[in-house]
């Protein structure tokens, strides 16, 4: 170290700054590249299936932002994806693979509906009662979702059971049991489809801005509020530091005094609480009752893609959710207005996840094409 320290320092600063920029650019680049490439593959599949890919692309745009109705629908799905994406991000950030958000949101949703239905007879009608019941429902969902996620957390922390597999199994179990209950003991006698009783009047989130009965700006606000709380919690609290550090390097976290078992359980519980909230918002804002969970959109799975696209950053989840909300919304449009089977969209989501898993692929592509060559 005989060099002039100031000069060395300056050079190091420049290198560090470039690295930081590169990694932020790189992340965004990978997210955009993955989505773009996956959509492109989707269009090729559409063409191969004998449909017009341009028409399909147009329908995607029309179906997501082409009208106020489409846009509200996009925001509705965005709301669900934000919450579900944050649920996934909490766990992934802490190095725990919670693949069970789908099951947790189902359990949260049914708990929300049941608690409201059970308490409704004891609560006065009118706005106050409605608001009270809504809050009770949200709370019940959070508790139920948290508990249902705590179980695989405990099994992982204290019994070494792989959480990927247990959470997937618990998804099947949640769908099975809730599905059985909704089709059996919970199904009203006059119901022609498989569903629970309707939630009482007054329970719900009022549509303040848009006139869509299935979307409320309050729901979106709630989702954004959760994003804010989680983002601050992760960066500004001891617990957040414990959690994120466990995700980066579990051995260092443990040495620093973090109890790894408790952190796993706490992480899973938190993640499940947010997942439960997804179910409640779905039940209260979108559906108004609960249906056979095998018919509920796979928000919990798509949220994995959302979170990965956002590099498991809760703030990044918002734009990623907007993208997936648009995709899901155009899916509803495609289903009605196109012969292309709507399942294609699920496939595209899968391809996005596949690409996100392989950043090296994009680094190679970037190098080959000369795009951002200096970064490589």
């Amino acid at each position, binding site marked *: 170290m005989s060099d002039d320290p100031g000069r060395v320092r300056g050079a190091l600063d420049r290198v560090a700054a470039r690295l930081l920029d590169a990694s932020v650019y790189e992340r965004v680049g990978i997210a955009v590249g993955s989505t773009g490439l996956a959509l492109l593959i989707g269009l090729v*599949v559409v063409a191969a*299936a004998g449909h017009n890919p341009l028409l399909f692309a147009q329908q995607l745009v029309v179906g997501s932002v082409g009208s106020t109705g489409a846009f509200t629908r996009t925001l509705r799905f965005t709301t669900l994806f934000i919450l579900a994406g944050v649920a996934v991000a909490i766990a992934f950030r802490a190095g725990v*693979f919670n*693949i069970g958000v789908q099951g947790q949101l189902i359990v949260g949703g049914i708990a929300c509906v049941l608690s409201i239905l059970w308490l409704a007879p004891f609560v006065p009608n009118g706005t106050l009662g409605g608001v009270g019941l809504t809050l009770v429902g949200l709370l019940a969902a959070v508790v139920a979702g948290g508990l249902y996620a705590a179980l695989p957390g405990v*099994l992982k922390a204290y*019994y*070494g*059971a*792989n959480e*990927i*597999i*247990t959470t*997937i*199994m*618990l998804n*099947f*179990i949640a*769908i*099975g*049991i809730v*599905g*059985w209950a909704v*089709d*059996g003991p919970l199904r009203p006698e006059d119901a022609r489809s498989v569903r629970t009783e309707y939630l009482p009047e007054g329970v719900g989130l009022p549509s303040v801005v848009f006139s869509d009965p299935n979307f409320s700006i309050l729901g979106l606000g709630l989702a954004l509020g959760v994003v804010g709380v989680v983002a601050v919690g992760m960066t500004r609290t001891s617990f957040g530091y414990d959690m994120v550090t466990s995700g980066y390097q579990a051995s260092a976290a443990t040495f620093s005094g973090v109890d790894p078992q408790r952190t796993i359980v706490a992480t899973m519980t938190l993640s499940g609480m947010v997942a439960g909230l997804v179910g409640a918002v779905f039940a209260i804002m979108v559906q108004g009752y609960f249906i056979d969970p*095998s018919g509920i959109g*796979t928000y919990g*799975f798509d949220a*994995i*893609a959302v979170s*990965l696209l956002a590099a498991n950053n809760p703030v990044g989840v918002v734009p990623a959710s907007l993208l997936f909300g648009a995709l899901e919304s155009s899916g509803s449009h495609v289903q009605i207005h196109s012969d292309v*089977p709507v*399942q*294609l*969209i*699920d*496939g*595209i*989501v*899968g*391809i996005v*996840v*596949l690409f*996100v*898993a*392989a950043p*090296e*692929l994009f680094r*190679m592509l970037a190098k080959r094409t000369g795009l951002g060559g200096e970064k490589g």
Partner: protein
Amino acid sequence: MSLATGTSRRRLRLGGLALLAAVALAAVLVVRFDVPLERIFTVGFLNRTLMLASPIALAAVGGLYAEKSGVFNIGLEGFMIFGAITAAATLSLVGASSQLHVWLAIVAAVGVSLALTAGYAVLLIRYKADQIVAGLAVWFIGLGFAPFLASLLWGTVRSPGLASMNRYSVPYLAEVPVVGSILFNQSPLVVLTLVVVVAAWVVLYRTRYGYWIQAAGENPTALDTAGIDVNRVRYATVLFSGAMAGLGGAVLLAHAGTFIGTGDTMVDGRGWIAIVAYLFGNYNPIGAALAALLFGGLEGLQVQFQTVDIAVSGRLMGLLPYVGVIVVLTVWGKTRMPSSVGEPYESEE
């Protein structure tokens, strides 16, 4: 034998205990609910169990090869879905329903799975993709594209009735009680599974390729310095795992005769169960097959309970294998995994 280490002996003992517990539970059921056990544990049940276990066992053998060599193929479920839809599509497209065509469909399913796995393997090994996320992606892609293809072909996510694999029957011998029905009146695919399982055991523990696979997962550098290309071994095992998962999916379809694309498709978690089966079997193909038999049996119980009119919802009974998986993982969760699983290997320079 050198392979019977202390842990595997302990596992056997625990397995025995689990069996005892199951017997005790059965006894409680008999006494408390007056369940006619002899009508539940029939030869038919055993046969059904074998058929239900076959797809799981095949995928499990594939998955354990990949993991033994250091690659966690979490995409088994996805490749099973691809296997099932390919077999169904092939049968539907050739439009004929002879047994030969069923075999053709199975071969096609294995071929397509191999091709897809090749791409997946390149992502995992060459581009060092995150094995967990990429494996999940394969599942999601299967969950999307299989029903998509079904809709294109049949206008709905469910196929019409397709040809299925018949049992072969050896005259006279099939008449022998119990054994005859199991050995001589059986689906050839069950026999195929048995052959695959035994062959996988022999290759893994008795041939040089098996040595290489084990070394690739435990200490890749040791294998590399012994002059064997680690990534080549891993490509081979990942391809094999995809092929076996595809075969498992095809077997599932060939036994069912209809493709179902609703919800989680007809594969319905069997790929995940396969992973647990080989963990439970301690990465031993024969152990994995026995574990698959256990899960197949749990699944088969559903039918048995219906036949004896026990008023338990079929949908709830159908959850038994999933509950079984969680119990197994909880009790046997701390498996000794190959030390280098999940780590991409690069030789120096």
